């Protein structure tokens, strides 16, 4: 068989296959048409019966009314479910924001605590305290006081926004700073907006247990800082405990270092 004949047979078979598919499709169309005709006839018969028989008409009407009521009830259920889902969505969004805020606050508290306990050098601890109060609270003018146990006076050891010498030493129990340290409680100035450069906005006593170590006094806030936030109060509480512990640990470490050096010097002298 030549190539030409072979192509011809192939095309003929393709045509036959296509013809069969067409025939099959036509048969399906005819069947569907017949089915729809039967259905139409059935509906027409029911409608005619109903038109002639009031009972059948009532039954049909009741069926339709039931169906409408059923659909309305389903619609109402769907609306209620949608409302409940929207409400749930809103409360999830609110909860998400709350958790986000708590997360951010915890990050601040964690960082503050981590930094305070990252060194045993007293000057470094005091510098970190100042840094936390400026960066995390937003203070512009502040002073850190340390208690001199021999004189019972709070001496300024670090300041920001004003010369350290401009903050005088304070006797324990005197003024708002002295009273805050003696009572071991954070003292806030009643009117934060009022200008009173020597009266602190807030005084945070630094205590280890009952033992007072010093105080942090905030005298002014940054321009953009209008008021204290709940996070600030948390930070004040954290500073009151952790800054005091860090300062005391650094003081004790410094003292022990000095004692060690003295003893080493003495031993060297004796053994020479």
């Amino acid at each position, binding site marked *: 068989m030549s190539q030409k004949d072979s192509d011809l047979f192939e095309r003929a078979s393709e045509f036959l296959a296509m013809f069969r598919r067409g025939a099959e499709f036509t048969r399906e169309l005819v069947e569907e048409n017949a089915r729809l005709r039967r259905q139409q006839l059935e509906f027409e018969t029911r409608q005619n019966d109903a038109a002639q028989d009031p009972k059948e008409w009532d039954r049909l009407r009741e069926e339709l009314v039931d169906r409408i009521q059923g659909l309305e009830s389903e619609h109402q259920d769907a609306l209620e479910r949608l409302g409940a889902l929207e409400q749930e969505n809103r409360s999830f969004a609110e909860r998400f924001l709350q958790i986000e805020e708590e*997360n*951010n606050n915890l990050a601040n508290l964690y*960082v503050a605590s981590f930094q305070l306990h990252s060194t045993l050098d007293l000057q470094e601890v005091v510098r970190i305290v100042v*840094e*936390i109060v400026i960066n995390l609270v*937003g203070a512009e003018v502040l002073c850190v006081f340390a208690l001199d146990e021999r004189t019972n006076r709070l001496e300024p050891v670090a300041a920001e926004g004003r010369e350290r010498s401009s903050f005088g030493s304070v006797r324990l129990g005197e003024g708002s700073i002295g009273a805050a340290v003696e009572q071991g409680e954070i003292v806030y100035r009643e009117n934060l907006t009022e200008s009173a450069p020597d009266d602190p906005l807030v005084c945070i006593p630094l205590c280890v247990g009952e033992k007072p170590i010093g105080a942090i006094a905030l005298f002014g806030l940054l321009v953009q800082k209008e008021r204290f936030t709940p996070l600030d109060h948390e930070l004040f509480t954290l500073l009151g405990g952790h800054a005091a512990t860090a300062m005391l640990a650094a003081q004790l470490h410094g003292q022990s270092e000095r004692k060690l050096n003295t003893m080493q010097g003495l031993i060297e002298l004796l053994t020479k």
Partner: protein
Amino acid sequence: MRRHRILIVEDSPTMRQLLVFALKRIQGAEIVEARDGMDGLRKVTSDHFDLALVDINMPVMDGLKLIHLIRDEESLKAMPIVVITTEGADEDRERAMALGADEYLTKPVQAGKVLAVVKGLLKV
């Protein structure tokens, strides 16, 4: 996954730690820290960064000078810069924006706010 290289130029270790904490939440973020303007300039010119967070008041070289030098460098003109500073006055903001900063945030800043701003600029 695309990596986002972020440079933090800040002299306060507390702020650096807080910013690292916030930015670590960006998937694929690689964070590099610089402790002053000069250190920041060295790092930003010797390596590629997708964004820089810059403080204003820093020793050795301040943030405004750093922004000016970054914007002078042709290859760094498009790099987004976010200023995070204690300076809250309008004129400070205007000065930084005029030099080429893209965002200006004032301290104390919430980690979530920084994260949202950085994500917006990095389009992540």
